[in-house]
């Protein structure tokens, strides 16, 4: 129940109106209503809520546009042409524009025999099994999740078959098109079958001048012995608000390596909530964030070790310029049964200007005794001695700085271990640094 005395913010009020205007004839109406009530009872999270201490969404999200209008095919195609981060990577593609699946822009060639796919919308229309899956996540625990369940429009229901070794990567492209602000809400549910091997790319992009919002929740079930690389590239438009949760559950001996690459949006929160639900599984959880101007980029991570013999390695790097703000929150939980857990978390930030800011909150919650866990954090500026060395060889200051920032970020990117993906992200980083020149010397 909402506290009767709490005054809603303008954005909360707008969300309530948008929710009331949703189509009443909907197979998941009940789920939506429960979720929205859960959201409204607490409202937008703010700095006095521990999890949101450094990302005061109540303050950062003043407006709440209504559900995005579906894009026409020409607009959609034009917007998709700009979503080219992984053009150098051999990949199949599932395309969502303004939160709606676009079959005519999608391409499953080369993997069609190894996967099953349906759009969430088609599932919703039939009611059916998806309802149970939705019920499995409690919207009360996260405002992103609650809003997602309340407003979800479409998503990918994707299954990689047991034992399949995908010959190409699969990209889930999330693109915003058109010049009108809107909210796009996607829920992707992916299951990687037993012993399957896959590289999944999740991309987000949109126009710079439009104050649109993205709310995307991606649930991943990784079955036993599967091996998955999961790379999120967030290159939203400069005015966008981007809220994303990646929720992987990992079975016995599976390997799941997510990477979060974030350069876009005015405000972004990328949450990874990863749970080991089997033994002897491992996850290499890494990411980079580069921000400038007045961007606010938050990477939040919860790694839940519930069973023995699992390994998680976390490495997050941020390069923050201008007046931008970076946030890293990383929590490793080791439950009483999770003996022989190996968890190592590292966060490193490079501040590129006097106005840049970085908040770092590593946490270990350990309830088992036979574990190796640790965390480290650094936050500093470009090394003056390295800079001088490069300059003494004739490399000018901004180029030398670029080389050093690139080197700093590359250390994380290279861990992805798949050359085409690595070079795509390195090229993107170089591109970003090229545009960053004036901020660096400020």
């Amino acid at each position: 129940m909402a506290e009767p005395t709490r005054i809603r913010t303008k954005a909360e009020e707008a969300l309530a109106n948008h929710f009331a205007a949703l189509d009443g004839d909907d197979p998941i109406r009940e789920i939506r209503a429960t979720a929205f009530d859960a959201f409204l009872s607490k409202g937008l999270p703010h700095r006095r809520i521990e999890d949101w201490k450094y990302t005061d969404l109540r303050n950062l999200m003043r407006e709440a546009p209504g559900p995005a209008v579906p894009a026409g095919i020409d607009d959609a195609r034009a917007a998709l042409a700009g979503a080219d981060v992984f053009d150098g990577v051999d990949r199949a593609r599932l395309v969502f524009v303004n939160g709606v699946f676009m079959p005519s822009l999608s391409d499953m060639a080369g993997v069609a025999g190894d996967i099953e796919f349906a759009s969430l919308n088609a599932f919703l229309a039939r009611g059916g099994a998806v309802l149970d899956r939705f019920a499995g996540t409690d919207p009360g625990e996260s405002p992103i999740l609650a809003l997602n369940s309340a407003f979800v429009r479409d998503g990918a229901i994707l299954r990689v078959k047991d034992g399949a070794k995908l010959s190409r990567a699969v990209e889930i492209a999330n693109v915003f098109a058109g010049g009108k602000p809107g909210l796009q809400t996607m829920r992707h549910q992916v299951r990687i079958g037993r012993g399957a091997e896959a590289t999944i790319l999740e991309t987000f992009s949109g126009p710079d001048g439009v104050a649109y919002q993205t709310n995307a929740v991606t649930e991943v079930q990784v079955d036993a012995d599967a091996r998955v690389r999961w790379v999120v590239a967030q290159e939203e438009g400069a005015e966008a608000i981007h809220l994303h949760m990646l929720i992987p559950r990992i079975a016995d001996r599976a390997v799941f390596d997510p990477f979060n690459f974030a350069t876009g949006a005015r405000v972004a929160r990328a949450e990874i909530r990863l749970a080991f639900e089997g033994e002897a599984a491992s996850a290499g959880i890494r990411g980079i964030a580069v921000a400038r101007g007045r961007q606010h980029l938050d990477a939040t991570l919860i790694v839940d070790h519930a069973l023995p013999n699992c390994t998680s390695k976390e490495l997050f790097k941020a390069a923050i310029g201008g007046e931008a703000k970076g946030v890293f929150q990383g929590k490793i939980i080791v439950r009483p049964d999770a003996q022989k857990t190996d968890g190592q978390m590292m966060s490193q930030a490079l501040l590129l200007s006097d106005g840049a800011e970085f908040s770092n909150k590593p946490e270990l919650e350990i309830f088992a005794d036979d574990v190796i866990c640790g965390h480290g954090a650094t936050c500093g500026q470009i090394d003056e001695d390295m800079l001088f060395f490069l300059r003494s060889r004739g490399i000018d200051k901004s180029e030398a700085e670029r080389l050093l920032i690139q080197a700093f970020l590359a250390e994380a990117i290279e861990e992805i271990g798949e050359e085409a993906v690595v070079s795509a992200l390195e090229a993107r980083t170089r591109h970003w640094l090229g545009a960053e020149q004036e901020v660096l010397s400020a």
Partner: protein
Amino acid sequence: MLEIKNLHVEVEGKEILRGIDLSVEDGTVHAIMGPNGSGKSTLSYVLAGKEEYEVTAGEVLFNGRNLLEMEPDERAAAGVFLAFQYPIEIPGVGTMTFLRTALNAQRKARGEGELSTPEFMRLVREAAQRLNISSEMLKRPLNVGFSGGEKKRNEILQMALLAPTLCVMDETDSGLDIDALRIVAEGVNALRAPNRSFVVITHYQRLLNHIVPDVVHVMSRGRIVRTGGPELALELEEKGYADYVEEAA
């Protein structure tokens, strides 16, 4: 080529160089010897343009230009090179990427075109071979995992590629075994030319057996206290620096 007049330099409020005068003509090799802490590295850093050194008096002219007003990268493009006493490791920056960026940056600053990849590769391979630097070393990040001697050879490789006109070498010989010393000295001697000068900073005379200087200076407590011919190096080898340390004390 290089004209240093009455140079005074402070670090953190402490005067390190206390009136250096030094004149290096085209095509000559000057050796600077002196006890530890006498200010040799400070002089080399000031020539290369390191920020934390504050010049409180004097001037430095490089081919008639005021060197002290130039940025470190401008000095490099103009032909100044410092082989560092302690070459720095730069993780994540590939040695080849670094060499190429440096070479092209200098070419660009001088209004020359960039080198093509095959031209660049050929230049590096030839220079590396002469210095006994393996292609495996070139694949690593700059100086990462290099031994002390490898780092020093890598400095000379950069010097050979960038072809400066003023080479300042700060204790390039320290940490080198006798074979490596010979290789480095041969590399340096191959670069000797009528329009190229060297300032060779060393603590020991043995490097000067291989790179024979025209002039030898002794530095003590931030000043050049004696100047002579190659025989001065031999004298120092015999007597050590005790005289100079005491004289200055």
